[in-house]
């Protein structure tokens, strides 16, 4: 990648995203630009399947920086997210240096002097050599600036959210045995949330917030033209109208962008010319991932076509 690294303006970010095949709204461009300028993490919230994670990946790509991704889940804690002491390695080394320790202590007359001569050495077992760096620490300690993607933060526990605050606001973490580790480069962080639960105010306050919604008909048409050009403009329009109709209906799970693209490709594969029942039946599984939804749509597809 030869592009200049600094983000110069929202327009340019938007342009580069478009070059990468991502239809980028002005809001997304502005958000990324501001996140860079103000040095704040960016919190993207919205329904699943609107491309939040994709934004993070592309952001890393544009910066030609490695993407470090932290997938959140219920019960995620700092040993999985930040660091852990490598107990096994510590054990192994203890065994290996056992004899050496014997030599060291040979001269010591009593317990006190033995402890004294060990004091300086014990810290060796809690040095960076025995540290297993998990994603967050990897980002902070890496030599190159990287992009940190904290995915689906709403799945994690509240405690974990609170724990993230130090990283997000000061780009540093405190490890009791080692001290404070500061980021060597400005932290570029993107957080995504599916809004299944309310995030804390403290977290929101430290981030820029962008609500990413399903694209409008025009944008969706452009996405289809990029990702499934074989579809033809006429059918693409029908597809978009149908999908927008589905999203307005109260389905159990509304289709995301990736599913729409899959469906378009499926329609191409079966050689569909329109959206008749015969075209829908075999392909609808690419779009809707719930039996009730599929049955409901198949029972009256005409309702969503208008």
């Amino acid at each position, binding site marked *: 990648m030869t592009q200049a*690294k*600094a983000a*110069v*303006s*929202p327009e340019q970010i938007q342009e580069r995203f478009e070059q990468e095949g991502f239809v980028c709204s*002005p*809001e997304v461009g*502005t*958000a990324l*630009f*501001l996140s*860079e*300028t*103000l*040095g*704040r993490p*960016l*919190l993207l*919230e919205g329904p*699943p399947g609107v491309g939040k994670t994709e934004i993070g990946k592309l952001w890393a790509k544009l910066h030609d920086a490695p993407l470090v991704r932290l997938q959140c889940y*219920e*019960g995620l*804690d*700092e*040993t999985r997210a930040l660091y852990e002491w490598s*107990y096994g390695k*510590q*054990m192994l080394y*203890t*065994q290996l240096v056992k004899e050496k320790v014997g030599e060291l202590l040979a001269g010591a007359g009593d317990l006190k002097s033995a402890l004294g001569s060990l004091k300086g050495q014990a810290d060796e077992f809690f040095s960076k050599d025995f540290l297993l760096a998990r994603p967050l620490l990897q980002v902070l300690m890496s030599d190159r600036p990287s992009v940190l993607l904290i995915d689906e933060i709403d*799945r994690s*526990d*509240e*405690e*974990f959210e609170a724990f993230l605050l130090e990283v997000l606001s000061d*780009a540093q973490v405190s490890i009791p045995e080692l001290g404070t580790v500061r980021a060597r*480069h*400005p932290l570029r962080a993107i957080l995504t949330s*599916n*809004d*299944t*639960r*309310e*995030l804390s*105010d403290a977290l*929101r*306050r430290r*981030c*820029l*917030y*962008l*609500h990413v919604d399903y694209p409008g008909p025009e944008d969706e048409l452009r996405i289809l033209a990029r990702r499934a050009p074989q579809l033809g403009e006429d059918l693409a329009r029908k597809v978009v109208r149908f999908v927008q109709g589905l999203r307005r209906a*109260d*389905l*159990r*799970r*509304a289709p995301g962008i990736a599913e729409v693209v899959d469906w378009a490709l499926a329609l191409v594969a079966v050689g569909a010319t329109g959206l008749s029942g015969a075209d829908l039946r075999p392909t609808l599984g690419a779009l809707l991932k*719930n039996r009730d939804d599929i049955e409901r749509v198949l029972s009256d597809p005409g309702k969503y076509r208008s």
Partner: protein
Amino acid sequence: MIASLQRFVEALRARGVSVSPSEVIDAVRAADAVGPEDRARFRAALAMTLAKDRRALAVFDDVFEGFFAPPARGGAGQGTGERGGEGGLAGRGGGGAETGEGKSAPRDDREAQARAARRASRPAPRDRASARTLRALPEHLLRGELAKAKTPDAAPRAGRERARPPGARPPAPVRAPRAVETEGTREPARRSRLSRLLATEEHRTETAAADPRRRDLASPMTPADERELAREIPRVLDEIRLRHTRRMRRAPRGRLFMKRAIRENLATGGVPFRIPMRRPRRRRARVVLVVDVSWSVATASGLFLLLAMEILRLDRRARVFFFVDHPVEATDAVRGWLRRGPGETGTGGTAPHPPLARTPARLAAARGHGSFRGRAPRRGRGAASGVLPPWGGRSFGALLEDVPGLDPAAASDYGRAFWALSEGPLRVLARGAVLVVLGDARTNRFDPLPWAFEEIASRARRVLWLVPEPRSRWGTGDSALPRYLPFCDVAVEARDLEGLAHGVREMAASL
């Protein structure tokens, strides 16, 4: 620009959006980085620094439209003022007739404008402290922050690349967008206590219109309101469940568990890498719910049981009593009511709670069937007592009619109900229990017999009372609440979904 941004922030706060000083600084820097030329971008920049959730975004849109006039309108200050007035009206309209508002706006223009100005000058109560901080955060400080952001050497985060490399377009001159400026925005006027109270109420109804969780359960609801409320229920359930099932690793507590320490560290040659601690196990308290189910509070009761049983689903010792004029045990009836269908068994050994991933689906299901089904009002039960579990099933109203020995249309008699409970089942059950009472204590001038309630309360470990009425009406008319409250540990104003959820969280915290 800084001054108008500050006023804009105050207007946001007046509408209940909490904005911290650091966010204001961010907003100033963001606005400067983007420049006011492109309205959409300028708006996006302010939105992402000042409005941090969907609720706040809705308010932001409203206030922004009224505050920063679109360039196309091009009129003088008068035009912008008009928009401000409209925004204020629309915000209060809620589920009402939206078509009429546009027309009535010019007529009420002056009054609405004045109201908007008054609102803008008044910080929301919980924001008062940070508003004070902001005022103490003088303009020159913000300017300084801005200047710092511009000079790369003094940038707050050292090592950050410059926003604009030398070749790029020069920084845009900072021009102030035209803002609504009325007397009220400059100098907060002194107001009498009454008008302040009225204003709080106005603000409250305004936010209530925007937020289904804040909607008064006792007020009549349109089907659209009910749908919105129904949509909110699964989210509240999830929030309660998530808060209740925290699983983060905690700091070691208790005493050293020597036996296990030796056994567990055998593998590491006796080097104690794992240090197990022994904690005294506290037995969970029994929960006893005593719920007034007369039609007047049935909506709140039904919703409360929905939320509370989410936590008590696996608690075999929890008991539920309904009462109107006398108490009836309803534990089994409520459990049966809330039992999920075969497709959604939440009970059973392996998965105590339905997986979270299923939530949006259930939420969507709730949209389809509606947690509230608009039934024809009968005997004053109102449409609202058609509370349904999000996963479908019978309405709460239907349940109440089926509980033997219960007549929800009878006149409430708290005294007799408490007396019967203290002599009967709660004589034993209340001992060491967490007692949760839901009711308005409107006892139709029957003797409230507070000593009977004291009997029960004195046996319980903790007593919570959820009142489905605004605090201002507690103890008015035939309400005997002040007679009972001295024996309660916590009283919660549970007039809306948020209040009920708060009560349930209190309950979960005292287990």
